[in-house]
C-alpha cells in the first residue's frame, strides 16, 4: 500500500516536471473524419444525410463534409481533405469510388472508406485488386427489401405492387431485386399471383427509372402511372425522389409507400400516414464503426458488408400502419428474417 502510494507520488511529480499529462486511452485525441459527399446535398433525406448523421454521432472524431454539385467536384473535394490532413476520408456513394481509389493509391498513409462500393482498383478490362487503405462499405439491402416485398404482396388489395429507381446503379437495383423476389416468394408460398410493376430481375433492361436522383416531378408522374395501372404499394428507390409522391398519396389514399435508406418516418414532412415501412441501410452506423476502428488503430482495408445478421440492413417499424398489418403476416416476416439470417432462405 505504502509502496504504491510512493509510486504514485513519483509518477505525479514526473508528470508535473515534464508537463505531460498521462491521458487515459479513452480520451485520446479525436481523429479528423472527412466526408466527400455525392451530389444531392447533405440534406437529401437519404444516404448523404445518413452518412453525415453517422459521422456526427461518432464520439471519436471531429467530422466535416464537402458537398458536390456535380461529379466534377469529386476529385478536388478529396484533394482538399488530403491537403487538410484528414485521417479518415469517406467517399459517400458508388459514383465517387474511382476518385477515392486514385487518391488512396497516391496517399498510402491516409485511411479511406467508400460507401456502396468495394473500393477496388480496377483497370480498363475490369481486372480488380484490393487497395490496402480503402475499406468498402457495402450492404446486402436485398435481404431487407425481400422482407418488404413479401410484406407488400401480403398487404396489397389489388394484387399489384410497383417499384422504380433513380438510375440503374447496382446499389439501386439490388433493392428492386430483393423486393421483386420477396413478392415472388410470397406468390410461391401462398399460391397467389401478385404482380410487380417497374422491375423484373430477369429483364433489367425493361426496368423503370427516373434517370437521375433529383427530378421529383418525373418520379411523381411515374408513381401516378403505377397507381393508374392498379398498384397500391410503391417502393421508389432514390433518396428524396419519392417525397412529393408520398405527400400526394397521403391525400389521394390510392397507394402506400415504402421508403429507403433511413427510416422515412423521421424524415418525411408529409406522407407518414401512408408510410408502410422503410428498407433501412445503416450507412451512418457503418461510418461510425470505421471511425472507431481508425481511432483504436484497428483499421483494415477489409470490406464491411451490412446484412440482416449484423444489423447493417433492416426493415423499419410499421409506425402508423402497425395496426393495419395482420399479426399473421408480421410473424411470417419475422420468420423470413430469421431464415435469411440462418442462411436457410436465399434471397438471390
Amino acid at each position, binding site marked *: 500500500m505504502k509502496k504504491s502510494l510512493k509510486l504514485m507520488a513519483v509518477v505525479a511529480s514526473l508528470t508535473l516536471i515534464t508537463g505531460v499529462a498521462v491521458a487515459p486511452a479513452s480520451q485520446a485525441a479525436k481523429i479528423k473524419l472527412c466526408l466527400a459527399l455525392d*451530389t444531392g446535398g447533405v440534406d437529401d433525406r437519404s444516404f448523404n444525410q445518413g452518412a453525415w448523421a453517422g459521422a456526427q454521432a461518432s464520439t471519436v472524431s471531429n467530422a*466535416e463534409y*464537402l*458537398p458536390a*454539385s*456535380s*461529379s*466534377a*467536384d469529386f*476529385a*478536388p*473535394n478529396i484533394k*482538399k*481533405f488530403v*491537403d*487538410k490532413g484528414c485521417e479518415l476520408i469517406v467517399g459517400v456513394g*458508388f*459514383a465517387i469510388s474511382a476518385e477515392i481509389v486514385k487518391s488512396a493509391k497516391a496517399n498510402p498513409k491516409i485511411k479511406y472508406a467508400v460507401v456502396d462500393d468495394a473500393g477496388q482498383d*480496377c483497370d*480498363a*478490362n*475490369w481486372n480488380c485488386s484490393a487497395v490496402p487503405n480503402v475499406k468498402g462499405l457495402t450492404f446486402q439491402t436485398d435481404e431487407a427489401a425481400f422482407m418488404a416485398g413479401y410484406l407488400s404482396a401480403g398487404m396489397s388489395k389489388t394484387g399489384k405492387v410497383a417499384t422504380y429507381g433513380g*438510375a*440503374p*446503379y*447496382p446499389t439501386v437495383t439490388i433493392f428492386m431485386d430483393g423486393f421483386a423476389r420477396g413478392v415472388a416468394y410470397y406468390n410461391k408460398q401462398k399460391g397467389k399471383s401478385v404482380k410487380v410493376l417497374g422491375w423484373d430481375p430477369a429483364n433489367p433492361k425493361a426496368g423503370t427509372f427516373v*434517370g*437521375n436522383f433529383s427530378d421529383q416531378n418525373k418520379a411523381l408522374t411515374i408513381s401516378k402511372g403505377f397507381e393508374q395501372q392498379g398498384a397500391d404499394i410503391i417502393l421508389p428507390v432514390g433518396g428524396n425522389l419519392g417525397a412529393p409522391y408520398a405527400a400526394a398519396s397521403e391525400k389521394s389514399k390510392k397507394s402506400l409507400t415504402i421508403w429507403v435508406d433511413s427510416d422515412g418516418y423521421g424524415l418525411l414532412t408529409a406522407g407518414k400516414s401512408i408510410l408502410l415501412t422503410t428498407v433501412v441501410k445503416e450507412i451512418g452506423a457503418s461510418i461510425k464503426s470505421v471511425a472507431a476502428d481508425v481511432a483504436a488503430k484497428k483499421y483494415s482495408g477489409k470490406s464491411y458488408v451490412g446484412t440482416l445478421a449484423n444489423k447493417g440492413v433492416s426493415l423499419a417499424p410499421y409506425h402508423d400502419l402497425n395496426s393495419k398489418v395482420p399479426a399473421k403476416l408480421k410473424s411470417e416476416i419475422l420468420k423470413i428474417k430469421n431464415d435469411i439470417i440462418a442462411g436457410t432462405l436465399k434471397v438471390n
Partner: protein
Amino acid sequence: MMRNSLSKFGQGIKLPGLSFLLAFTLTGLIIAISDAKVLAKISSPFEFIKSAGAAVGNAYLALFQGSVFDVNLTKGHSFLQGFYPLSETIVTATPLILTGLSVALAFKSGLFNIGAQGQFIFGAIGASYVGFHFQLPIGIHILAAAFAGALCAAIWGGIVGLLKAKTGAHEVILTIMMNYIASYFILWILKTKQFLRPGRIDPIAPEVNENARLPLLAGDNFRINIGIFIALGAALFVWWLLTKTTVGFKFRAVGANSQAARTAGISVPFVITSTMMICGALAGLGGAVHVLGSEHALNADIAGSFGFDAITVALLGRAQPLGTVFAALLFGALHAGGRTMQSSTGVPLDIVLVTQALIVLFIAAPTFVRYIFRLKKLNSSASLTSKGWNG
C-alpha cells in the same frame, strides 16, 4: 486615343464592379447573421460587430485561400504548391469561359442562347467518343477529339438557328427544349454498348486515351492544362470575328436592329443560323475541354451547371469577350474558394451561389445600383438583358 479607350473601359467596368461590391457586402451580412456564434453576442453591439467582422473576414480569407494562394499548402512543399488553388480556379473557369463566350456571341446577334448546356453535352459526347474509341498519334488525337466535340455541338446549335431562321420559332423555347433532349440523350447513349464502360452498368463511359488528354501545364500535382489557352484563343477569335470581319459586322447589325439589317441587304436567316452554329461550337469546345482536360470520362452529369452559369457569366462580362473571360475566372474562383470556405470556416458552399445570384441581380437592375451609389449616369448596356428576347 489610348485615354479614350481607358475611360471607356472604366465606364464598362463600373456597373459590374459596383454590383460585385454590393453582392459581396450583402453576402457578408448573410454570413454574419447566419452564424450562431455571432448572433449569441447580439446583446453587446461592440462585441457583436467584432465577432461579425471576424466571421466575415475569415470566410473571405478562406475564399481567397481556396481560389488563389494558400500559404498552408507550401509547408513541406515548394512555394509554388501554394498556387494549387489558382490552378483549380482556372480549371473550373476554362469550360465556363467557352460556354460564356457562346452565350455572349449570341447576345451580340440579338439571340438569347439558353442552350449552352445542351451544346456542352454534345461537345462532351463527341470529344469523349473520339477520345476513347480511336488510337491516334499525340497531338492529332487531341485535335480530332476537340474538333469532333465542336462539330457535334455546332450541328446541335445549328438546328436551333435553322428552325428559327426558317420557321420563326423562338430560340429561347427551342434551346430550352433542346437542353432537355440533350440531357436525356446522354443518359440513353451512356447505356449503349458503344459508350458503356466494360464491367460497369452505371452510366459512365471509358476514360479517354492518354494521347487525347490535354497536356498538363505545371506537372502532375496541378490539374491546370492547355485548355485555358484554348479558351483564351476562343475569346480572341470571338473578338476578332465581331470587330474585324464582315461577318461579325453583319452579326452585330442584326443584333442591333434586324429590320434595318434586312433593309440594308443582310441575310438575317444566314446570320441567325451561322451565329447559332458558332455558339454551339464554342459551348461544345467547352464540353470537349472539360472531358479531355480534367474529367477524362463521360458521365451523366458531366455538364454540371456550366451551360446555365454561362448565361450569368456572359451577363457579368457584358457580352464582351474579355469581360466574359474575367467573369468566368471570378465564377471559377468562387466555386473553388467556396470549398475551402466551407471546409475551414463552416460557411456553406451554397453561399457562393447567393453571391453569384446577387451579382446578376444588381447587373440586371442598373437603376438600383445607380441609386445606391448616387451616380448620375451609368453607361449601361442593361438593354442587353432584354434585347435578346426580341431577336
